């Protein structure tokens, strides 16, 4: 569902963000807004500063300069924002059961035990993992663990959903399943920030996007605007054109 966005309803606002690690500047003077209810594509090659920006937005990194706001204020765990964050670094308490882990995170996100259990079970049913409810997480496959992590991310029906490479390691069937889940949350009113390399997903889901290159905004706008700027090419072609000359540089952190 594409939404019409106006500059008055920015949920995420990043202005003049700069981040250095030692002598290396990873992001320089980055500014953009993400509007309420839209799916925003956060695109860029490895090392372009996507994850750094997300981590700074969530207070995990302290910026050198700039302003990173969610709902008009810097994010903190005591903010009233209902946040769902699926980080690039994947992991869970591997020796705990699926349900215990989901309920734990549900409760940390403010749900009652009963509510957290109910939502966990519903999610497991939705992704076909009901039979794994009481299994230890390390008994699940990598893909199944990723689904559980996504379940934890969305258990509180977040208003802002940040997904860093959510489809990494998923087969096409599960990728489609995940896309449907994201789409459902967007339909329910969530603002979705989608960090990915998968251009067809961006084309399918995103209202607007930003392309980061060398720590700055190389292109920013609606998908149509970005395509138009590059002569109507597909996003895949644009990606290759913009980043094709780069070697695979590892993400800074």
């Amino acid at each position, binding site marked *: 569902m594409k939404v019409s966005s106006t500059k008055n309803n920015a949920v995420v606002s990043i202005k003049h963000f700069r981040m250095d690690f030692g002598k290396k500047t990873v992001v320089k003077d980055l500014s953009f807004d993400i509007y309420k209810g839209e799916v925003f594509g956060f695109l860029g090659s490895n090392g372009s500063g996507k994850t750094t920006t997300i981590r700074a937005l969530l207070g995990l990194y302290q910026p050198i300069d700039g302003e990173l706001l969610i709902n008009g204020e810097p994010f903190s765990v005591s903010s009233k924002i209902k946040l769902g964050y699926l980080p690039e670094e994947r992991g869970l308490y591997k020796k705990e059961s699926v349900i*215990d882990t989901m309920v734990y995170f549900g409760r940390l996100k403010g749900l009652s035990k009963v509510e957290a259990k109910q939502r966990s079970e519903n999610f497991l049913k939705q992704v076909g993992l009901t039979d794994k409810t009481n299994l230890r997480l390390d008994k699940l496959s990598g893909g199944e663990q990723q689904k559980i992590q996504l379940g934890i991310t969305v258990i509180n029906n977040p208003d802002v959903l940040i997904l860093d490479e959510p489809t990494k390691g998923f087969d096409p069937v599960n990728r489609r399943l995940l896309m449907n889940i994201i789409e459902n949350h967007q339909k329910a009113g969530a603002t979705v920030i989608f960090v990915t390399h998968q251009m067809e997903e961006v084309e399918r889901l995103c209202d607007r996007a930003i392309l980061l290159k060398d720590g700055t905004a190389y292109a920013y706008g609606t998908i149509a605007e970005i395509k138009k700027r590059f002569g109507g090419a597909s996003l895949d072609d644009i990606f290759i054109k913009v980043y094709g000359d780069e070697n695979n540089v590892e993400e800074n952190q």
Partner: protein
Amino acid sequence: MYNLRTVFSFEFIRTIKKKSFWIMSLLFPVIIGVVFAIEYFSNETTIQATEDIASQVFSIEITDQSGLIKGDVASIFGAKMSTDKQASIDKVASGQLDAYFFYPDNLDKNTVEVYAKDVGIFDNSRYQSVATTILQQSVAPNVDAETTAILKDSVSYSSTTYRDGKQTNNFKEIIAPGIFLVLFYILIVMFGNQMLTSTTEEKENRVTEMILTTINAKTLIIGKILSLIALAFVQILSIILPILIVYILFRNQLALPNFDLSNIPIDPVRTSIAAVIFAFSFLLFTGLLVAIGAIAPTAKEAGSFFGVIMIFLFGPLYAVTLFVSMPNSPIVKFLSFFPLTAPIPLMLRNAVGNLSIPDALIGIVILAISSVLALSIAVRLFRHGVLQYSSRLPLSVLLNKSRIIAKPSKNK
């Protein structure tokens, strides 16, 4: 508060459900039980062996130059008198005789010689026992029972001491404040590793990013520490209860001493000081171990730091006699007030009663400041170490030079 409770119950329940927790908890009383059982059966076996030896009849010959051996006593053991030492030794060597005892004159200067058939390294001692018994029983009628008791150092003594006009019992007075020292030792030995891995777990499992965008680091760490304290109580109970049950039910069978707990004197000042020192010592080491866990990328790497902490903590045990006999020496003062070594000297000196109130107060203040400092450093290191998944956290974070920080950023 809600999240603190959530972290506490999650950490507590998941640990209590682990088999390894109960194995560790029950292993201690089981080991004590095994030791007591071995001791019991060993005693039984020794008594039985002694009875067996007493009932055995040896062929023995005796040459007595001391003039102390009584013929009737020797005959009880089936011994015959011999005048030819060499002939008797030859009989033993050829197997015709089990043993030959030669009692020289001037026994205070000369040695009783025992010649006997080799019956194995453990049983050979029985011959010397018989030689000793024959000699003791022969001279016993010449000495009265009191003199015998004095010479055998078997006279019992009772001491009554007074302090400030009140009767004291130094040994029993150690028990109440000393319990905290024992508890501290058990907790650190059994829980040290768990404290250490409580924070490395989040890093090793790559959970930190998710969890620290959900709750703050301080809540997480305090929740973990509180759960560790609760688990420690469970573990202490699981150690003490079986021991108490075994003691109450099998005290007579195991010949255990009779402890009358109602007679244990409790000095409220010393016991309170012990409790406060214990609490701050526990917090200090929890903070240190959590901080180590936050620095190291894996539990394995954290283990090498753990060893250093243990050396500081338990190293003073090697100077135990010094703490008891020379409480005012500079080295004892240093070890008592240096935060990393302070817990054992302070608790030990307090237990034996040579920790003055001013020394106790100085020690408590040092431990309190150190523990608060250690805990805040632990939280800071954990926040900074959040994204250092595979490398050790640089200590420059303590100087606020790192940009990696899992707390609300101060955006302009």
